[in-house]
């Protein structure tokens, strides 16, 4: 019964009419109504009837592959609003290796399983896809489409000579070659892969540039792997690259929790290769996430925070400072080595060491903020509001025993449990909560947990 329904659905899908475009070398486009079962020869016939171009004088190209007359659109993975490219002459189809973009897409969506000899075939296996982040239209993770063009002239009339074997072939530039059919470029050129979103039709909502970023870590769980964090078998997994190949994985939901926690606890690490990023849960040394669009999956608010933290971290590593003024936080790289720093945005002048308003002499002896009342100076309303807020927050911080400044970078730190050994989440300084000096054996001996050991 169920099988019957499935067959019926499949037949229904094949019967649906949709449009594909065929573009010739002059850039003229013909729209041809087709079904999934339509063959390439049928499309060529319609195209010739409409344009008068002799049937045997051209070939069709789709996603890096020259199409043979017997192929059906379903087998090729051609969907609604796809564009086929018309090349004059063209080599005989038999001479071109069989590169099906659909097969490559399937390969990209799978988890490489060297260690599983006989991967179980799950019902979702037929539906394995790879995913992209659609920035322009859908603004979320969507199944992706793989397309190829000439790396020199960016023309889509291009056929591949070698089939990509995996993500490295697709993502690394100047790796695979192919043949370009543009009259001005032409010949043996490097291939350039790009990605589109399968969630919306091309050219929708007037967006012309709707190329997407491939989320190469997101895969379909075709091998029934259990998420090591939640112990569930989920359909979509996030696979880290450990030791240069597919390594540790976790389900999409756990990945979001894992990354969210690491971000809010500021455990991301800034490094030259991957930027501000995290390792796999097993902390494999080379498993940092290199494609930062994966953090888009955390949602707009957290992604914005990710970008802010990343910029701050990078700036602090370069020896920069952040404006301590409430609501400002402007980053700057002061050239003057002195302690007096003035924020170029809000004009707040502060001490580079203690982040208090600028003062002369030792930071410990810094005088409290002087009231402007009676000095005859003009006070801007916004600043007054801010300073009141600031004062209230300062008073709260000072009165609260669970908040103390880091002895090195002076950022305020709240202690909500655990032992007296603190690590500053901003500058990574290890210090003693009681003595406010660098953590050492004396503190460990005397008051690790607050009382005498």
């Amino acid at each position, binding site marked *: 019964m169920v099988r019957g329904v499935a067959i019926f659905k499949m037949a229904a899908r094949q019967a649906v009419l949709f449009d594909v475009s065929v573009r010739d070398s002059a850039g003229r486009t013909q729209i041809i109504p087709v079904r999934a079962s339509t063959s390439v020869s049928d499309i060529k016939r319609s195209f010739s009837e409409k344009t008068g171009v002799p049937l045997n004088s051209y070939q069709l190209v789709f996603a890096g592959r020259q199409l043979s007359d017997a192929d059906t659109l379903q087998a090729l993975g051609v969907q609604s609003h796809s564009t086929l490219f018309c090349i004059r002459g063209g080599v005989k189809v038999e001479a071109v290796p069989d590169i099906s973009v659909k097969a490559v897409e399937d390969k990209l969506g799978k988890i490489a399983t060297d260690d599983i000899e006989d991967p179980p075939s799950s019902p979702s296996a037929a539906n394995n896809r790879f995913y992209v982040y659609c920035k322009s239209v859908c603004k979320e993770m969507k199944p992706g489409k793989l397309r190829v063009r000439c790396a020199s002239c960016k023309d889509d009339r291009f056929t591949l000579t070698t089939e990509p074997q995996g993500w490295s072939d697709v993502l690394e530039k100047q790796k695979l070659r192919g043949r370009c059919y543009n009259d001005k470029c032409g010949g043996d050129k490097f291939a350039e892969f790009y990605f589109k979103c399968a969630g919306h039709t091309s050219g929708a909502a007037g967006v012309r540039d709707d190329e997407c970023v491939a989320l190469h870590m997101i895969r379909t769980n075709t091998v029934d792997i259990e998420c090591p964090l939640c112990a569930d078998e989920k359909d979509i997994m996030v696979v880290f690259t450990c030791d240069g190949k597919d390594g540790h994985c976790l389900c999409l939901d756990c990945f979001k929790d894992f990354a969210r926690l690491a971000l809010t606890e500021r455990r991301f690490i800034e490094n030259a290769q991957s930027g501000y990023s995290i390792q796999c849960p097993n902390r494999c040394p080379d498993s940092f996430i290199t494609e930062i669009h994966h953090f888009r999956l955390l949602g707009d608010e957290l992604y914005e925070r990710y970008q802010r933290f990343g910029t701050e971290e990078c700036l602090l590593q370069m020896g920069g400072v952040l404006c301590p003024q409430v609501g400002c936080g402007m980053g700057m790289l002061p050239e003057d080595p002195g302690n007096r720093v003035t924020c170029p945005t809000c004009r707040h002048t502060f001490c580079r060491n203690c982040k208090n308003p600028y003062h002369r002499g030792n930071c410990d002896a810094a005088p409290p903020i002087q009231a402007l009342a009676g000095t005859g100076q003009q006070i801007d309303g916004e600043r007054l509001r801010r300073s009141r807020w600031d004062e209230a927050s300062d008073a709260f911080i000072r009165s609260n025993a669970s908040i103390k400044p880091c002895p090195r970078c002076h950022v305020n730190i709240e202690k909500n449990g655990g032992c007296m050994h603190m690590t500053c989440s901003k500058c990574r300084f290890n210090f003693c909560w009681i003595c406010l000096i660098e953590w050492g*054996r004396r503190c*460990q001996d005397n008051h690790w947990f607050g009382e005498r050991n």
Partner: protein
Amino acid sequence: MAGLPKRILKETQRLLTDPVQGINATPDEQNARYFHVVVAGPKDSPFEGGTFKLELFLPEEYPMAPPKVRFMTKIYHPNIDKLGRICLDILKDKWSPALQIRTVLLSIQALLSAPNPDDPLANDVADAWKTNEHLAIQTGEESFLYMYFIFTSLLYFTRFCLLFNNFS
């Protein structure tokens, strides 16, 4: 066990059906997140032959947050204080959600075999361990209580005096 995450159920099941040698962890009848743990002193360590009771609690955030583990049996070890609190990086900043109850307990067992005197919680023990490992091992074997440490130190001191007397 209603509302218990699948991961905790699976881990509990595996701990019961496929236990690690020398480690016994059973969930509390009232609270499935609380485990009664018994670890056997590892072979060729000063703790060989001893059994050590621990308590392990899985907080609400587990596995994103580490389990809370504490020795119930008093133990003479440089990385464990007199209240049984353990100094082990994976229970703090080096925690990873990929670790499990099983791996945590194995790490604690390994800590018994290889104390880390450079990161000590009980410093007098660490100093004893560094300056005279033989003495510390003897002490560890003969007593798990601090009281016994003083007692055995006195014993060794007397023996030493006797030895000295024989020579003179």
